């Protein structure tokens, strides 16, 4: 994840409390989604950014995961996301995200 974004996530977690923060990703691949999810839960796996060694344990989801999709207005989702959703490997993304949440998320 972008180093500037890591810094912002860290600041928001301090400002609002990690239990009140939810991170939503739009990554194109399962691997990228998993890396970003790991960064905001267990710390930066690349040891490069401000979240290195910081275990925020935030709730993190991909916008295309069924739990999120069902909370969003269907017509807005169709208009904004469904075109891209068709070309993404959703099963791969869901697998990666579920595994990271199970291991590292503190606020499920």
């Amino acid at each position: 994840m972008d180093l500037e974004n890591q810094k912002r996530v860290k600041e928001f977690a301090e400002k609002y409390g990690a239990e009140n923060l939810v991170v939503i990703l739009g990554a194109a691949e399962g691997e990228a989604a998993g890396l970003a999810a790991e960064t905001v839960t267990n710390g930066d796996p690349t040891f490069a950014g401000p979240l290195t060694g910081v275990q925020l344990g935030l709730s993190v989801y991909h916008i295309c995961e069924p739990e999120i999709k069902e909370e969003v207005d269907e017509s807005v989702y169709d208009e904004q996301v469904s075109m891209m959703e068709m070309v993404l490997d959703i099963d791969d993304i869901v697998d990666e995200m579920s595994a990271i949440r199970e291991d590292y998320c503190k606020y499920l």
Partner: protein
Amino acid sequence: MSILKGKKIVIIGDRDGIPGQAIEECVKTAGGEVVFSSTECFV
């Protein structure tokens, strides 16, 4: 229990996936308060 409603939402979109702006529009309809939205580029 709702995941998004009443929560502070940080959006990390992806230029090659779903952009931040599109996610923002969706999250708002679910009652989440967007505090930050960006679109990353992995090129």
